[in-house]
Structure formats: structure tokens, C-alpha cells
């Protein structure tokens, strides 16, 4: 009864074996020359400044939620539009009214959002750091990449570009050659 599933089982086992062999082989055989640069969370991209645990406006979620409402409307409209043409006249009228009711209900939600000023971003305040968070940033040691002074990345210049954040991070005290 279940013999039809044997190939799938074999594939699952095979996939597991191959994946684990590849991971372990590279773990055992691969040369390891770690530099702190390699061990930063993101090897390419922005130089990390400060903690990732920052506050940001929760309105992002609101926009995401509103998006979902209208996204679903669109998804619902597609099959409706496809089947609309093939229906008879009476059913067509009914379908049209039904979709109008559906859209009207969605628009009540949209008007509610408008009426509540949820889409008005003008008054949004800059998130302010609580004193505690600021202390966390202060006590945090500066990030070193192991190539200060020698490598192509000039950290002090990178800091200067990032602007006002520079004050919250104390200056590095003496450069160290890569660990």
C-alpha cells in the first residue's frame, strides 16, 4: 500500500546524507583562517554601528496589515475576473453585485484607516532612546575589524560618514594589528 512512497523516502534519506556529508566535510577539511572581519554578522554591507535592538516606528506593521487587506482583494479579484465572462447574464449581474459588496466592505476598512489618521506619517516622532539604551551603547566596545591601519577599510573615515552616531560610540583607543 505504501510502496509508492519508497522512492520519496529514499530521496529524503539521500538528501539528508548528502547535505550532512557536505557540511561535515567542509567543516573537517576546509582551511580555517579566521579574521574578525569575517566574523562580523554581515561580511558585506554597512559597517555595523550600534545595537540592532533599536526602536523603530510601529507604523511599519500597520502598513503591512493594510497591504494584506488590499492584497487579498486583488487575489480575490483575479479568479473572479477570469470566471466572470463565462457566466450567464443573470449570474453575471449577481457576481457584479457580490463583488461590489465585497469591495464596499473593504472600503469601509479603508475609510476607517483614513479617518483614524493611520496613514498620516507627518506627526510621527523620532524614536527617542531611553537613558538605559544609551548606556548600553556607551559601554559597548568599539567594533574592530582586524585590519585597522593596514587594510583598505579606514574605520575612522567610515565613522565620520555615518555622522551623528559618532558621538555615542567612544573613540577607539589605540589600533591593534589583526588578532
Amino acid at each position, binding site marked *: 500500500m505504501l510502496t509508492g512512497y519508497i522512492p520519496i523516502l529514499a530521496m529524503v534519506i539521500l538528501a539528508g546524507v548528502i547535505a550532512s556529508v557536505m557540511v561535515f566535510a567542509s567543516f573537517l577539511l576546509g582551511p580555517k583562517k579566521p579574521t574578525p572581519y569575517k566574523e562580523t554578522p554581515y561580511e558585506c554591507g554597512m559597517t555595523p554601528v550600534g545595537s540592532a535592538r533599536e526602536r523603530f516606528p510601529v507604523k511599519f506593521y500597520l502598513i503591512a496589515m493594510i497591504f494584506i487587506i488590499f492584497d487579498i482583494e486583488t487575489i480575490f479579484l483575479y479568479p473572479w475576473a477570469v470566471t466572470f465572462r463565462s457566466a450567464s447574464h*443573470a*449570474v453575471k449581474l*449577481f457576481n457584479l453585485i457580490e463583488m461590489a459588496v465585497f469591495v464596499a*466592505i473593504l472600503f*469601509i476598512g479603508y*475609510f*476607517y484607516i483614513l*479617518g*483614524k489618521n493611520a496613514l498620516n506619517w507627518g506627526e510621527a516622532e523620532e524614536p527617542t532612546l531611553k537613558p538605559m539604551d544609551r548606556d548600553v551603547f556607551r559601554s559597548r566596545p568599539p567594533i574592530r575589524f582586524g585590519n585597522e591601519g593596514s587594510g583598505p577599510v579606514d574605520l575612522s573615515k567610515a565613522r565620520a560618514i555615518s555622522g551623528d552616531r559618532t558621538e555615542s560610540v567612544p573613540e577607539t583607543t589605540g589600533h591593534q594589528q589583526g588578532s
Partner: protein
Amino acid sequence: MNGASHIASSLSAILPILILMGTACVALMGDVFIWKRQRALTGIVALIGSVWALVVNLQQILGYGSSEPFSGSLVYDSLSQTTSLVLLIATVLSVLLAITYLRNRGLELGEYHVLLLFSASGAMLMGAANDLIMLFIGIEVLSVALYVLAGIARTEERSEEAAIKYFLLGAFASGFLLYGIALVYGATGTTNLQQINHLFSAKASITPILVAGIGLLIVGLGFKAALVPFHQWTPDVYEGAPTSVTAFMAAAAKVGAFAAFLRIMNAFMPVQPAWITAIQVLAILTMVFGNLLAVVQDNVKRMLAYSSIAHAGYVLVAVASTGMIYRHAVLYLSQGDRAAMFYLLAYVFMTVGAFGVLVLLSRSGKDYQTMNDLKGLARTHPFAAYTMMFFMLSLGGIPPTMGFLGKWLIFNAAISAHQVTLAIVMALASVVGIYYYLRVVWMMCFQEPEGAPATEHPVNDWAARWSVIVSLAGTLMFGVLPALLSPIMTGLYH
């Protein structure tokens, strides 16, 4: 039947639900755009809408019709109509409770009434569901609105905690329910309850997948109805939510869940051996633990939460002794179903009334909740104390009240369905219940008020007062003259 007339008759069958939803939309738009400053108007619009729906619902009940709107995905019979009636009574009473209370608590949000109406319409959909998918939609409409309502006191930690707890556990329970629906579909090939019933009537085959499916359905609904192993959220949520929300939650969510229980269990009647033991065990656990845990509570809201768990156990006894009879394609309800519906109506009156008294006593920004708050209430607030006394007597099941009669009907139904163990446990558990209900009465009537008398008197809340008076009138009137309900519940008394 041709399309247009089928649609017309379908829409007229669900007219009470449509009225509730439409009122909610109108109230929402009005609250945002038209009467921005006068939030009480939203409550009044909601009240008008729910009373209108109640009148239409009564007309439907007295019309004695039955149909299957929307190609059999809903069913419109005496059970769904009576469920709607009970739910609409709960809605009207809860809207009345909230109008002034919200202002006192600084929570005057139009969304409150809108969500309440949506939630009630979801519960009504559950009662009318003839298809497991419709049942799921109903339960979600009911619950999602309730999650928000539980946390509507946004600035209070307890309310936030209640909302998060209810939401997380509720979402989990929905998962169980959905999995149960999937397994039942796997076992039967349909999600339509009537078809499931016909299928098993022809050939009752109990397969493991079916048993697992029914079990998961029971878990999912048991969470909404707060049956014992799934009751952990109840006291915290009931305590943390604003009292008027608690009143509605205790009433509507439970009525909806039990209506769904009755529908599902009646559909699975031919395979009764597959589920009857689970229901029996749950009923015994719920009755025993609900009552025992209520005894040790010092907070009245928590005590009422555990008492609502115990009452869920009693209604579950009625579910265990259910069994609808289809005779000449007309649905006749069994004694168990009738007892369950009667008890749910009694439960709505008693619970909304008891929470209503707490609403009535609440001062600005503070809920009246501990046993100590109630000390000497008979002297300081005689109206609240004596109405509370009747609700407590009714919850305990003392004769001239509806609570007694409901218990008697369930007891009777259990005996005639040969559920003797359940009947005995129910009687014993009720005795424990009387202890903590009478303790409230004792605190109010025979204790001296504690501390300095409150300088701030409760606001004269006429709307909530009327809600309590109507609840009291219902509790006593139908307790003395249950025959008054017979023209309404005729479908139930055939």
C-alpha cells in the same frame, strides 16, 4: 429552486446576522466621520441594531420555518434560531452595560461596540453552521474580535496580558480545530455536517482517523468553551479584560461554542461510541475542577470565571445526552438539546447579570473585584447587593430561579439518556458550587464594610442598571414560569 429566489431566501434567513454586521459598519463609519465627539452615540446605534436583530429573530422563530441557506452551508432551524436569540439577548445586555462603564474607565472607544457586534455575528454563524468550514469562519469572527476586546484597555498591563494570552492560546486552539476538520474530511470525504450524518447513518464505520479528527474538534471547541484541561486562560483573561467585555465573553463565546458542540455531536450521533467517553470525562473534570477551584478564589471576577467553567461542565452533560431526531426530514430536538439551550439562556441572564452588578459598582478607573470590596454591600449599595444575591442563588441553582430549572432539565435529560454517573457528579458538584456562591451573599449581607467608606460614589449608570434589571427579570420570570418560553422555543418542545 432558481438562483435569484434561493439567494433572496438565503439572505432573509440570515437577516439577523446581516443586521448586526450592517449596524457594525454604520456605527464604525459614524464613529469615525459623523459623531466624532459623542462616542456614546456609537453605543446607542449598536443597541438599536441589536434590538432590531432580536425582533427579526423573534419573528423568524415564531414563523417556525426551516431552510438551508447558501446551498446547505448554513442551516436555519430551531436550534440555530434559539442560539441566535440567546446570543442577541447577551449582546443587547452587554451593549447596555458598556455605554457608561467605558466612559468611567476612560475607554470610550467606538470600536468597542463595533467589535462586540462583529463578535456576536460570528457566534450566531457558529450556531447556524451546517458545514465545518462555516463553523471555522464563525469561530474566527467571534474570536478575533474578542482578542481585541480583551485588550481594549490598552494602558493596563492586565488587559494587555489577557489579550496576548487569549490570542496565543486561541490561535493554537484554532489550529487544533482546523486539523480536526482536515482529518474528518479525510475520514468522510465531506465537511458538510448533514452529509456526514447521512453517511454514518448508512454505515457507521469508526476509523482511527475519524476518532482523531473528532478528538481534535473537541479540543478546539473545548478551548472556546473553557472545558477543564483547556481552561487555563479563562481566569486570567476574565480578570484582566474590562468587566463589560468579560460579561460578553463569558456569555457569547460559550453559547457559540456549545451551539457548535451540539451541531457537531448530533452530526456524529451514529458513531457515538467514538466520542461519548471523551465528552463524559471532560464533563466530569470540568464540573469537579471548576467548582473546586472557584472555592479558593478571593477575586470575584476569577471566582465567576471558574464558576463559568463549572457551568460549561453542566452544559456538557446535556451535550453528552444529546441526539437530534430527523423525522420526515424535519428536525426535532432531543431532551438534551432543549435542556442545553434552556440552560444557556439561563446562563446568559445569570452571568451577564452578575458581571453587570460589578460594572455597576465600578468607579472611575477602577474595577470592583475582590471579595473584600463586596463586604457590607447590602448596607452601602442595597440595589447592587440584592440583585447580586439573586444572581448568586440562580448560579447556585436554588429553586425560584432559572438556574435551578435549567439544572433540573439537564439532570432529567441525563437520566433519560442513561448518563447516571454524569447526573450524580453534577448534583455533587452543584453542592460545592453553592458554598462559594453563598459566600458572596454572606460577604455582602452579614459582613461590615471594610475600611473608610468610599468617598467617590459609583456613577449613576442607568443603562447598566437596566441591563441588570432585565437580567434579573429574566432569571426570575423564566424560573417561575418557564412556559412563557414555550411559544419562543416551540421547536424545542416538540
